[in-house]
């Protein structure tokens, strides 16, 4: 049912998030890798600015706080939505942060970080 790449991505999703994640994949969100509509590149860059303060410039710094650059948009979006909806039991601060953005903004951020090197 899923391509090899999608399966690999699915394996990186925590188990408790998988149900929601399947729904997203089936909903076709994973397939679209284009810039989410409604926000200019510059707008998303400004929105993404504060992410760098814990994830490094362009979200590329790996450490205790994970890098977010170039991770699949579907994975990032599912994770951000889980934070926003209090569906991530391991949340410490990202639940408080994600609630400050609309679902559309979170999706645009997910696409921005996923596609950083394909601008």
């Amino acid at each position, binding site marked *: 049912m899923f391509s090899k790449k999608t399966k690999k991505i699915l394996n990186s999703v925590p188990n408790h998030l998988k149900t929601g994640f399947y729904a997203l994949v089936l909903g076709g969100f994973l397939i679209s890798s284009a810039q989410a509509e409604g926000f200019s590149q510059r707008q998303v860059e400004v*929105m993404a*600015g504060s992410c760098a*303060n814990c994830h490094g410039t362009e979200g590329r*710094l790996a*450490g205790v*706080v994970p890098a977010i650059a170039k991770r699949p948009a579907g994975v990032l979006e599912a994770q951000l939505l889980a934070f926003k909806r209090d569906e991530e039991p391991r949340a*410490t601060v990202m639940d408080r*942060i994600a*609630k400050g953005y609309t679902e559309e903004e979170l999706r645009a951020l997910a696409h921005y970080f996923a596609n950083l090197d394909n601008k």
Partner: protein
Amino acid sequence: MSEENKTLSRRSLLKGVGAASLLPILSACGATAVSKGTAGHVVVVGGGFGGATAAKYIKRGNPAIAVTLIEPKKTFYTCPFSNLVLAGERSLDSIGHNYQELKEVYGVEVVHAYAEDVDPVAHTVRLSTGSTLKYDRLVLSPGIDIRWDALEGYDQAAAELAPHAWQAGEQTRLLRRQLEAMDDGDTFILSAPANPFRCPPGPYERASLIAHYFSQHKPRSKVLILDSKDNFSKQGLFTSAWQEVYGDRIEWVGLSGDGKVVRVDAQKREVETEFGTRHKAGVLNVVPPQKAGKIAERAGVTNSSGWVPVNPRTFEAELAADIYVVGDATVAAPMPKSGFAANAQGKVAAAAIVASLEGTSTVDPHWANTCYSLINPDYGISVAGVYRLENNEIVSPQGSGGLSASDADGWVRRAEAEYAVGWYNAISQDTWGTRL
């Protein structure tokens, strides 16, 4: 006309017509056009959290814009994590950053000098080296200056005996040496100021980490916080963590309990409170009242509060066109005066400056903040905020932000202590790109 004369004539002009009537004229001129054939020249004053970030992000936004960063220090020591240095948990070197990456990777011209004066009409900055720079847009991120006249007995000489250590570097080293030399059984007194001031949770993190140091090296010593206010940042989390981790080692006295220090005798390491109580310290740390860095005053962008009102969409100063001010110097409530916020504001100003030089429209600003505080190196708490613009006011979307849960499990406190370190590494990388 020499630079000196220009400055003089501006001053007399300001006097003549009254600053208030001149300013709207300045603003009405709007953004001045950029010299033909160039993408524009931006001068940034201050290479701390706000200024270094603004310089880098202007270059990221449009590398053709010339950016000159003015900062006297070759090594910038961060206030964040300086409380760990005081506790002996980190070296001062480990919180030092230089300007190599800004120069080499981003092409920022870095001038190690002090900006003495700004002429907002002529669009010039005069440096301590004697030279004068012309700018199309100016960014000021000078941080704070101490109000040396606001607390009796606390002047620059007193700060050599009773350090503030509210600007990191020599002051941090001095306070650390005093703590090490202090006799076991003596009291560390911290005098905390009224709002607003740099880093609202800072004094209480400092008290925590010094209590941590005492618990290991001076078991009979105590920490006394004398506060000029009745409430402080993350108060509930701090108070219960202090109980849990330190028992009665930390005592906090608020304003209504006669906590307000009104007189300092630095020689004797003694303070006197509003109602005449005297306290003697083994080590005395005065966190004094503050205001925007002096250059903001010189540029004429501060108001009577001593801080700089800004247009929140762009962080351009309300009182002068083409001068953008970010960081601690600004009035940006509900955003706190934090390094995180200064960095976030630097990015918003950078985007606005790039857009104005390119003649495109400004995008909607977004900011966030997270201030971690360490109770000890394995116990972290935080306050977070997300900010956006609504009706030209900075607001936090409902339900977002807030404090670490008061009933959180132990793993959350440990994780937040680890994330504090992750945050420090990331913001340092994002701001300067370097560690010594």
